[in-house]
């Protein structure tokens, strides 16, 4: 049998921290065969990224390889090299790094230097490893940029990373990694920060390039859907150890280890039953939530929150040297209705205007036209005309849960201060009453009372997000605006937070506006789903009919691009390849919307509405 390209044996990596030694990777053994994709799966903190860094010897200063070997058999010939025994700054290691083993990272924005053109950064990789001049290197750079799908490679040489979209930046990263034709590509969460349609295109690109060059890929991810679609072999890690390894077929059809089984049950899937519940790896338990009663309140007759014809334009200046102003319409004629006690999911890719809508509802932004109506049982009122006490009451009723649990909690405030701050601002209760309320809130989100004196940094991402939820609940709101509340979290924790939100809703009678780019998550939590693209709501339907019968081409593309952790339902890469799904002017008739037009929502079955173009709207009239 042919020797594998890379074989890792009993690899151990230790971190020296103030608190003592910490073993991040513990006796890891894996093989990466030539031309195959090996997926390394696990939660954050499981040691998968540290493994990748060990292979390239770019570990942080606190970490070091304490034992084991990493043997690299270069297909170009030459003796096998044990990477673990090379000094990190030796010439041999420099030659391997970027030359024979290349790496791409999760955050395409921060992984590229903002001060250098991508042409400079990509050609640099080639010039380090082969003896070429700048002109030749530029030529090769243009070739590889064209290969990874840049529309105008010549211009791309001179562009800076911040001028590119997330997808193009990741393509530039791939170009940089592949220009030296490495034998092994390490991809550390390459698509986690990208939209689903872009993710599908990037995965497709990596697969194609792999076939072309015959390289091996070590794919690090926590997304089982991605694994099911691209991996040949799967290695599951947990706390620095391998839990289970095997071929994709074996792993997905016949998961043996309890951890892997649990991981699989924690991922929301499209084919879930109506009342099926996700099983988080660690369930949140609360003693009082089950018995908690919703506060007695007058229920509105109509929807509790309603948006009518919201339109918002932003003025964009294209740099202060040219001074040309340009109007961008971020939100166009958005109509939404949120019934009391229900969840409305708002889905779309980054930049589609979904966050702008939630900010308008929160009154953080004023719309150019249209209005938001809030009904607390005394009849609908225009939110943007509220003043004085009525406004304070509205602020109490509508609270926000943020995406990033790390930056949304003030690091200098204790949990007690964080949770009582809303009460203090609204001057509610005495300090004893506030203390009682905070204890109750902590219990609702399943956190220990002992955490009251601790600071946010000592909590994990999931715990912090639960703190954020507790803070939002402090004022007994009626509506929660959740802006991507789980997209920064691991799958295992994601299930936990989603379940918590569901339980809170049924116990407290809350209404949610749930904004997300993840269709499977929205499918799990929402009752009605509105799909947004380029500021338009393109399709709105109860979730069952949206997934059964997606009508709009954009919705179809979005659904097709979600990788399902089910190997019997692979992504249709060929279909996604053609796509310009997010250009309203390029949608097929009758959906096409010309620039400057709004189109019209047309009801095709009860509750299921689709936006159609102007022409069709006239015909209908």
């Amino acid at each position, binding site marked *: 049998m042919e020797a594998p390209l890379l074989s890792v044996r009993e690899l151990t990596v230790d971190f020296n921290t103030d608190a003592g030694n910490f073993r991040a990777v513990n006796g890891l053994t894996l093989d990466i065969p030539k031309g195959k994709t090996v997926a390394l799966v696990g939660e954050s903190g499981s040691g998968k990224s540290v493994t990748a860094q060990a292979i*390239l010897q*770019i570990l942080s200063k606190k970490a070091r390889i304490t034992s084991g070997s990493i043997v690299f058999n270069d297909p170009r010939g030459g003796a096998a090299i044990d990477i673990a025994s090379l000094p990190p*700054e030796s010439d041999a290691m*420099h*030659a*391997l*790094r*970027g*030359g024979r083993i*290349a*790496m791409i*990272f999760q*955050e395409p924005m*921060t*992984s*590229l*230097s*903002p*001060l*250098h*053109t991508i042409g400079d950064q990509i050609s*640099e*990789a080639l010039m*380090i*490893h082969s003896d070429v001049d700048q002109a030749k290197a530029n030529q090769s750079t243009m070739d590889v940029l064209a290969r990874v799908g840049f529309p105008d490679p010549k211009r791309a040489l001179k562009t*800076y990373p*911040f*001028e590119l979209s997330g997808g193009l930046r990741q393509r530039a*990263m791939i170009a*940089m990694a592949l220009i030296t034709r490495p034998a092994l590509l390490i991809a550390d969460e390459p698509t986690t920060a990208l939209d689903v349609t872009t993710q599908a295109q990037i995965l497709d690109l990596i697969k194609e390039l792999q076939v072309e060059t015959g390289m091996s890929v070590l794919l690090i991810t926590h997304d089982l859907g991605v694994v099911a679609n691209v991996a040949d072999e799967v290695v599951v890690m947990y706390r620095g150890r391998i839990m289970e390894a095997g071929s994709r077929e074996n792993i997905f059809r016949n998961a043996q280890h309890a951890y892997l089984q649990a991981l699989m049950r924690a991922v929301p899937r499209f084919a879930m039953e109506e009342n099926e519940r996700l099983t988080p790896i660690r369930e949140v338990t609360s003693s009082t939530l089950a018995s908690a009663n919703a506060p007695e309140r007058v229920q509105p007759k109509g929807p509790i929150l309603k948006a009518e014809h919201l339109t918002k334009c932003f003025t*964009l*200046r*294209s*740099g*202060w*040297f*040219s*001074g040309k102003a340009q109007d961008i319409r971020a939100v166009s004629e958005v109509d939404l209705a949120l019934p009391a006690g229900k969840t409305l999911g708002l889905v779309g890719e980054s930049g589609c205007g979904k966050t702008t809508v939630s900010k308008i509802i929160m009154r953080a932004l004023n719309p150019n036209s249209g209005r938001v109506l809030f009904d607390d049982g005394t009849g609908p009122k225009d939110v943007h005309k509220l003043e004085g006490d009525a406004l304070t009451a509205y602020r109490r009723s509508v609270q926000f849960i943020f995406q990033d649990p790390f930056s949304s909690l003030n690091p200098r405030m204790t949990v007690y201060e964080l949770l009582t701050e809303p009460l203090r601002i609204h001057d509610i209760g005495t300090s004893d009453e506030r203390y009682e309320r905070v204890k109750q809130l902590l219990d609702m989100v399943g956190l220990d009372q002992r955490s009251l004196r601790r600071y946010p940094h000592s909590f994990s991402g999931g715990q912090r997000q639960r703190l954020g939820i507790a803070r939002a609940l402090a004022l007994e709101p009626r509506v929660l605006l959740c802006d991507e509340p789980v997209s920064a979290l691991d799958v295992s924790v994601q299930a936990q937070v989603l379940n918590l939100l569901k339980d809170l809703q049924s116990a407290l009678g809350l209404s949610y506006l749930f904004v997300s780019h993840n269709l499977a998550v929205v499918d799990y939590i929402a009752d009605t789903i509105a799909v947004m693209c380029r500021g338009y709501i393109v399709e709105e339907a109860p979730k069952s009919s949206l997934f059964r019968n997606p009508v709009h081409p954009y919705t179809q593309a979005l659904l097709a691009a979600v990788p399902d952790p089910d190997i019997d339902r692979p992504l249709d890469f060929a279909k996604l390849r053609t796509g310009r799904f997010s250009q309203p002017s390029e949608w097929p008739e009758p959906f096409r919307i010309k620039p400057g037009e709004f189109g019209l929502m047309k009801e095709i079955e009860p509750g299921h509405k689709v936006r159609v173009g102007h022409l069709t709207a006239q015909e209908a009239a």
Partner: protein
Amino acid sequence: MIRFLLRRIVTMGVTLLIISALVFFIIKLPPGDFLSNQIAELRAQGESASIAKAEFLIKQYGLDKPAWQQYLVWIGVMPGPNGFSGLLQGDWGWSFEYDKPVVDVIGDALWLTLLVNFAAVIFIHVVSIPIAIYSATRQYSIGDYLATFIGYIGLATPSFLLALILLYYMNRWFGVSIGGLYDAQYAGEPWTWAKMQSLLSHLLVPTIVIGLGGTAAMIRRMRANLLDELGKQYYVTAKAKGLGPTKALLKYPFRMSLNPFIADIGNLLPHLVSGSVLVSLVLSLPTVGPILLSALKSQDQFLAGFILMFVAVLTVVGMLVSDLLLAGLDPRIRMGGGR
């Protein structure tokens, strides 16, 4: 680009106008002025010739007119006794204390000041940047602590004290004469090679004294900036490409960490003139600092006004220069939207 420049130049003009008004009226605020004080003194002594001269000066500079008219004459938008003759026309006025035109009082001092302080700035950067890079890349090592410690001592030592100590030992060990920027024999002489040499040897002590005070602060700031950048992902990318450690460091994180310093040029330029007054006094350097101090004390209004205006011009120009440099060096500023 051109529109941006024009807009900036117009705002600069307005800013300077406001500053000039503030400078003038603040100098005028205390009752009396240099000349009327002098005249009162001369009258008491009964010297009629000097009184006539003083009264001529009062007429010449319109000191008997209301303050706002004096101001307009000073900046050169209102005709004085000699027609339009003010800052805008390049007439910087008369120094009553020295009884000379301001140009002659400032002349040499101005460029010597620039020279001394410029040398100090160079010294600060040359010393602190390598130390900062060393400390940042070896954070919490013994070398890092040592550099920090020495830097703090430099920061905490009063500069005039250090100046005195250095002067004493320089004189004792190397025979460098004390004080001034060149040996006394060259005062008023034309610039010869010997005078230049004397200048260079005298420059050493002031440069070190003024420089050391700023070095510690600079090391700390540079180290902090660099540490922030060293943690960034793009540096890992550069290393993963196979770049050697030195080149990866200098091309990416170091380059990024320079931005705040370029933004600081606007503050640095005026400091070149008005900084280091104390050290100049102790070392009796013929720089602008002591002149400004005495001019303010004796209400020598045109001299003080001119120096302050000069500093203001340097500030405004420095800001423009640093903005242009930043735009040139950082594409995000050049092309990014100023939202």
